[in-house]
């Protein structure tokens, strides 16, 4: 079925009822970005729970130096699949498939994504890719066990024969194409389906960040896909791209992997930066401070992120240290600009501690820790000293746990737009404190145990029982984080259809808060005039438009 869409002008009557199949068939055949986005959201959250369960087992094993909960072989599978599930199947798809899919078209006043069927295909590739990767656990040899980075030559058919590794590659191929299609779709949507008056510099920061993320996806993911095909060829077609014996170069895999892998870090992070930016502005009742600076900071982060990949390879001894160190240090500058802009947004505002806002503040502090420790790692001598120890594990968990907080903020903030119902704020705040405190108790000891010399990916550490206390503390933190996840699920159940949201529960500023919750089939049946990046706010508070530098309200325009 095809709908020919007219852009509504100022019609006030509701649009024609949505038609078509219902139930399972609706889910299988839908091309509505909101339904697809919701499928993404649910799948990604399930993946987070699965990956989290692996993490809890890892932490239980490490609670004693000679843990016997799992075998050495199982431990390797567990952290490999923990990392893989979290990065490939949770954080990425959540960042660019879930909320972005739902919110970006609405924020720019579009009826849907530019290629709705391609969008549906992205979801099916993501779902089947996830199943493929996880099904490794059900094969005789177990799941992939070479770490989420799959370094050659450990990942060749000599060292890791078995279907688990191939399923890992296959799953990544599917999710990789899924990401690329989403990237294409986002760029086309943002370039071609904006509402009248929605110029590029009036797009909400979240949409801007998604545009930049989409471009990064298009730059990075094809490289990973190519690398995976080479890896597969080495495993099964007898090529020697990454093996020394046949004249190949193992380090080439690392170059390819990290050329995707570092941009991937920002593909994960930028969407969440965007969410937090919007949330902080709304709950401070102010416009985003330094909007243009924010956009340029995002673009420079993305640009620089393509030139830093070998900071993951400092200790290989074969990369150009000063270049990668300088580029990596430079990324701290636009990141710092963002942090100061967030503070500027709150400054002299009216800060309301909703769950979404508290999660965003939690993000800010946790991300600050992760960002500052990242600066150390950009300095080769300090990286030689901490590389592949728990210091690095702690660093990136500060970052990713900050992203988890931002994801939660996004769910509390935009969830009502999709479902029509708010979540319980009290449970939300309790969840926040468990998540925030748990994260610090989980990560901070890991920095220390790393500095005391504990390498990552250790199933046992009998040689230095001194490390045990810090590990135990970290495991306590992991339990607190686990409880916060359960609280979230409990909140979903408890608040089910309890608190109707209305169109605009938070006094939102951007277009998605102009339409109903949930929005009608093609999102809008009327649009406000768009004169700034806050059309809904301008419409609701015409006397409180953003001020040029130096002016106060009441000065007259």
């Amino acid at each position, binding site marked *: *079925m095809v709908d020919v869409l007219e852009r509504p002008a100022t019609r006030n009557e509701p649009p024609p009822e949505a*038609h078509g199949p219902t139930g399972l068939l609706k889910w299988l055949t839908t091309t509505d970005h909101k339904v697809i986005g919701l499928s993404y959201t649910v799948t990604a959250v399930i993946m987070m729970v699965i990956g989290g369960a692996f993490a809890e087992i890892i932490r239980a094993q490490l609670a004693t130096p000679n843990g016997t909960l799992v075998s050495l072989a199982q431990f390797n599978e567990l952290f490999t699949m923990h990392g893989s599930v979290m990065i490939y199947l949770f954080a990425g798809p959540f960042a660019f498939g879930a909320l972005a899919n739902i919110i970006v078209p609405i924020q720019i006043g579009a009826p849907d994504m530019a290629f709705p069927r391609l969008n549906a295909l992205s979801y099916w*590739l993501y779902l089947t890719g996830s199943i493929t990767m996880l099904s490794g656990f059900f094969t005789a040899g177990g799941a992939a066990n070479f770490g989420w980075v799959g370094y050659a030559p450990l990942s060749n058919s000599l060292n890791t024969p078995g279907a688990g590794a191939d399923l890992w590659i296959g799953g990544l191929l599917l999710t990789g194409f899924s990401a690329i299609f989403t990237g294409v779709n986002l760029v086309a949507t943002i370039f071609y389906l904006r509402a009248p008056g929605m*110029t590029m510099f009036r797009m909400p920061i979240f949409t801007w960040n998604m545009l930049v993320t989409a471009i990064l996806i298009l*730059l990075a993911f094809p490289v990973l896909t190519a690398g995976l095909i080479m890896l597969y060829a080495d495993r099964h077609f007898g090529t020697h791209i990454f093996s020394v014996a046949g004249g190949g170069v193992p380090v080439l895999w690392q*170059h390819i992997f990290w050329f995707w892998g570092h941009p991937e870090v920002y593909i994960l992070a930028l969407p969440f930066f965007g969410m937090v930016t919007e949330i902080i502005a709304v709950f401070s009742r102010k416009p985003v401070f330094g909007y243009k600076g924010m956009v340029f900071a995002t*673009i420079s982060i993305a640009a620089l992120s393509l*030139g830093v990949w070998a900071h993951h390879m400092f200790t290989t001894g074969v990369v150009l240290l000063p270049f990668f160190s300088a580029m990596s240090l430079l990324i701290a500058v636009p990141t710092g600009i963002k942090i100061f802009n967030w503070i500027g947004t709150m400054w002299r505002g009216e800060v309301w501690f909703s769950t979404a806002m508290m999660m965003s503040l939690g993000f800010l502090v946790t991300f600050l820790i992760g960002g500052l420790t990242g600066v150390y790692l950009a300095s080769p001598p300090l990286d030689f000293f901490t590389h592949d120890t728990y210091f690095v594990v702690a660093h990136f968990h500060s970052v990713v746990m900050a992203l988890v907080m931002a994801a939660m903020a996004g769910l509390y903030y935009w969830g009502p737009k999709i479902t029509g119902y708010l979540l319980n704020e009290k449970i939300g705040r309790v969840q926040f404190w468990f998540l925030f405190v748990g994260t610090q108790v989980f990560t901070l000891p890991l920095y220390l145990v790393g500095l005391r010399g504990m390498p990552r990916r250790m199933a046992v550490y009998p040689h230095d029982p001194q490390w045990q206390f810090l590990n135990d503390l970290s495991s306590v933190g992991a339990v607190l984080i686990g409880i916060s996840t359960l609280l979230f699920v409990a909140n979903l159940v408890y608040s089910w259809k309890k608190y109707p949201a209305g169109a605009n529960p938070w006094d939102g500023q951007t277009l998605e808060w102009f339409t109903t919750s949930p929005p009608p089939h093609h999102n809008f049946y009327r649009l406000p005039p768009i004169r700034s990046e806050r059309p809904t706010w301008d419409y609701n508070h015409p006397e409180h438009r953003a001020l040029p530098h130096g002016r106060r309200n009441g000065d007259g325009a």
Partner: protein
Amino acid sequence: MKVEARFLLGLGLFFGVVGLIYWLWSGEDAGGVMLGAAMLLGFLPGGYYLYWSRRMTPRPEDDPEATPATGAGVVGAFPSTSIWPFTLGMGAFVTVLALVFGIWLLVPGLSLVVWALLGAVAESRRGGHV
């Protein structure tokens, strides 16, 4: 359209400059090639947009003064439901499983893919607007 073009051209330029510096300084080829490809990904679509931005009448979404009424009219044809993405996805799934469980799976896998592609194209034809 101009902003979009400049955005992509700017990125391409940056990757070109950084790629050149990197390649000359390090002599490491893989990174040089990948940065070169990144430059092209900025230049090709960026150049295309620049070309068109000079020839087309400005769109309502590029006009800061446009009102909702300015843009009223047909936006495009959007499929509201379709079974083909699911079919194509399953085809891709089975095709990838062939990498692991045996080449024979390519037969059902690729059949599904081809069937889905044909179906999707026919669907667009029937819709008549795409």
